[in-house]
C-alpha cells in the first residue's frame, strides 16, 4: 500500500465531509452552504469545524451526525466535530454553484445581503420556475427556518425563497 501524504489525507477527509448534504435541501452540500469551515489532521485524528446557520436550525444536529458517519466510512475513526460561532455564518458564503443548484431545485437563492434591509423594505425575488420578477411574498416564515413562501404572479406557481441571513 502506498502511504498517503498529509495533504492527500486531509483532501480525502475534506471530500468526505464535503459530501454531506443538507437534510432539508438535499441538492446542497455543506460545502455549497458554507457550513464546512475547516478540516484539521492531527496524527491519525480528524477534526471538522462547522458553523451553525440559523440559531434554531434543527438540521445542524443531523449534519454533525452525518459528517461523523461520512468520515468513519472514509476510514477516519472517531472524528471530532467542532462548532465555530465566529465569524457568524451568512448566506453570502453560499457558493455560486450552490445558488444555481438551489434555483434548479425550485428554490429562489438568497440575495446578497451587503446592506441591511429597511424595516418595511421592498425586495424583488425572481421566480425560480419562469424567471419572472412579478412575484409576491405570501409568508415571511416558511417550511424551514431558512425559507420564506412566495408566489409567482406570472406562472402562478408558489415557491420557496432562501432568506438572506
Amino acid at each position, binding site marked *: 500500500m502506498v502511504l498517503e501524504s498529509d495533504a492527500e489525507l486531509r483532501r480525502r477527509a475534506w471530500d468526505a465531509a464535503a459530501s454531506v448534504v443538507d437534510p432539508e435541501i438535499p441538492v446542497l452540500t455543506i460545502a455549497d452552504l458554507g457550513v464546512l469551515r475547516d478540516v484539521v489532521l492531527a496524527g491519525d485524528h480528524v477534526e471538522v469545524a462547522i458553523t451553525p446557520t440559523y440559531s434554531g436550525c434543527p438540521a445542524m444536529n443531523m449534519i454533525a451526525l452525518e459528517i461523523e458517519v461520512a468520515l468513519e466510512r472514509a476510514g477516519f475513526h472517531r472524528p471530532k466535530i467542532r462548532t465555530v460561532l*465566529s465569524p457568524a455564518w451568512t448566506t453570502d458564503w453560499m457558493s455560486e454553484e450552490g445558488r444555481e443548484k438551489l434555483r434548479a431545485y425550485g428554490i429562489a437563492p438568497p440575495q446578497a445581503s451587503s446592506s441591511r434591509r429597511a424595516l418595511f423594505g421592498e425586495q424583488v425575488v425572481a421566480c425560480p420556475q419562469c424567471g419572472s420578477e412579478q412575484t409576491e411574498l405570501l409568508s415571511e*416564515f416558511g417550511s424551514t*427556518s431558512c425559507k420564506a413562501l412566495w408566489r409567482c404572479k406570472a406562472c402562478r406557481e408558489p415557491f420557496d425563497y432562501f432568506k438572506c*441571513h
Partner: protein
Amino acid sequence: MRIANTEVSETPLVLYALRRADDALILGHRLSEWCGHAPMLEEDMALSNIALDLIGQARELYTYAAKAEGNGNDEDKLAYLRDVRQYRNLLLVEQPNGDFAQTLVRQFFYSAFADLYWRAMMTSRDTTLAAIAAKSEKESAYHLRHASEWIIRLGDGTEESHRRVQASIDHLWAFTGEMFAVDDGERALIHAGIAIDPGALRGRWLTTLSDVVSEATLVLPQNDWMQQGGRSGRHSEHLGHLLSELQSMQRTFPGLTW
C-alpha cells in the same frame, strides 16, 4: 425521588448570559404554545419559526454561560433544572399569550428592543457574545418586521381588533422598563466593553414604537410606572406554571436524552 436544582455560581458574566438566555427560552416557549392553535396556517408557521430562532439563541447563550461558569453545568441543566426563583428573565416575556393581539404586542415590545440590542452587541469585546449577536440581530429584524406589520394591520383594522391591541399595549406597558435597567454587575461589564448600555437604546426603541403605533392609529401610554423583579428572580405567578410544562420530562425522568 427528589431532583436537585442546578446550583449556579452567578458571576456577573454568567448572570449576564443567563438573563439573555432566559429571555429567549421563555419567550420561545410562550410562542411555541401557539403551535397548532394560531388563527391561520401562515401564522402557525411564523410563530413556530420565531420560537425556534429564540430557542436556538437560548441554547447558544446557555452553553456560553455554562462555559463561563466552568462548574460542569450545560445548557440542559440550566434550562431544565433551575427553579422559578433561579430564572432571570424579564417579566414581559413570561406574560401569558392572551389573545393573538397580546402575543403580538409582547413580541413587538421585545423584538423592537432585541433588534437594537443585538446590533449593538455585535461590537462586544467578548467574541462569543459578538458572534451570537451577529446571528440574533438578523433574526430579530425579521421578528420585528413580522410583529410591526401585525400591529399596523390590527390597530388600523376593525373596531374590535383596534380595541384589543390598544388594551394589550396598555396592559403590557409596565413590563417594558425592565429591559433598560442595569445593576452594578452589568455596569462593570458595560465599562469593560463586554456588555452594552441598554439605557442608550431607549430613545431609538421609543422611536420605532411611536412610528408603528401611530401608523396603526394606536397610542402609547403616558404612564411611566414600571414593574421590575424578573432579573433578580422575583417573578409573576405565571412562570412557575410555564416551567412545570417546560421541565416536566427532566423532572419526571432525570437525565433523559432523546
